[in-house]
């Protein structure tokens, strides 16, 4: 069983880790958390994002938004890299999310076949 003592240990490790982070603007991932998003699988999308960030040790900001009126395309996820257009991806399963993280968030290449909208900067 996990104990709070373990959390204190972990806190010290994370503190060390944070000293090595860059102060530059981070990539941002935005999850649609309206009723439509949640019923279409937004919680799983978010969980996959969090798992990938943890597994690959990425420095990414994760935020949420409500319903944006594209309910039929949920679950939606947006990627906003610094100084680039915000790309919306739709109808995602966990494998799609992994792909977006590797191809777009890490390598900076838009996953065209999953993209449903682009918001120019």
């Amino acid at each position: 069983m996990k104990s709070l003592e373990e959390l204190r240990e972990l806190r010290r490790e994370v503190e060390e880790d944070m000293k090595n982070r860059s102060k530059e603007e981070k990539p941002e991932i935005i999850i649609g958390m309206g009723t439509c998003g949640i019923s279409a699988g937004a919680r799983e999308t978010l969980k996959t994002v969090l798992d990938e960030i943890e597994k690959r040790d990425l420095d990414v900001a994760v935020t949420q938004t409500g319903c944006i009126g594209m309910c039929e395309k949920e679950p939606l996820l947006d990627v906003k890299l610094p100084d680039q257009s915000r790309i919306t991806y739709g109808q995602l399963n966990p494998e799609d999310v992994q792909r977006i993280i590797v191809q777009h968030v890490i390598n900076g290449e838009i996953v065209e076949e999953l993209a449903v909208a682009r918001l120019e900067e």
Partner: protein
Amino acid sequence: MMRELSLHILDIAQNSIRAGAENLDIRIEENCCENILLIKIGDDGRGIEKDSIEEVMDPFVTTRTTREVGLGLSLLQETAESSGGSLSIDSEPGEGTAVTARFKLDHLDRPPLGSLADTLISLIAVNPDLEITYRHQKDGDCFDFSTEEIKAELQGVDIQEPGILKWLEEYLRENIAEVRGLSHPVLNL
């Protein structure tokens, strides 16, 4: 449709967040003797005017401006009523809102609670300033969790740090499974 009651909780909590809540209180009571499952989500958001309480249960009413329907509460009401239960809303403008859903615990059409740990982590991961208290009671047993307590332990380290979230997820999963008397954390009935 929501496959799990924990998804409804995540959805109703979004109403609280949009209502400007700083504190969210989630309570779950499983009472086998009385055959009742109770879910209560309370917040200190802006609240709802008395005249509007009935309206918010109507799927064709919302305070949103991007579209004309607000489905979350009416979906939960339908789920509660088809599981031999009911939904009620108590609210005071400026004070906050409490949504209470009751279900017959053993009703065949009651969806499973599902992954409460995933719902809590989803709320914490993207709302770092929201303080959440969670109490899960089953018959005599009780599990209490509070983000304020965790943040005190973290002494300024961000609760959104991936390693911290991962730890919290396992912590919640284990403790909720224990209070529910589930032999394996993956069983979520």
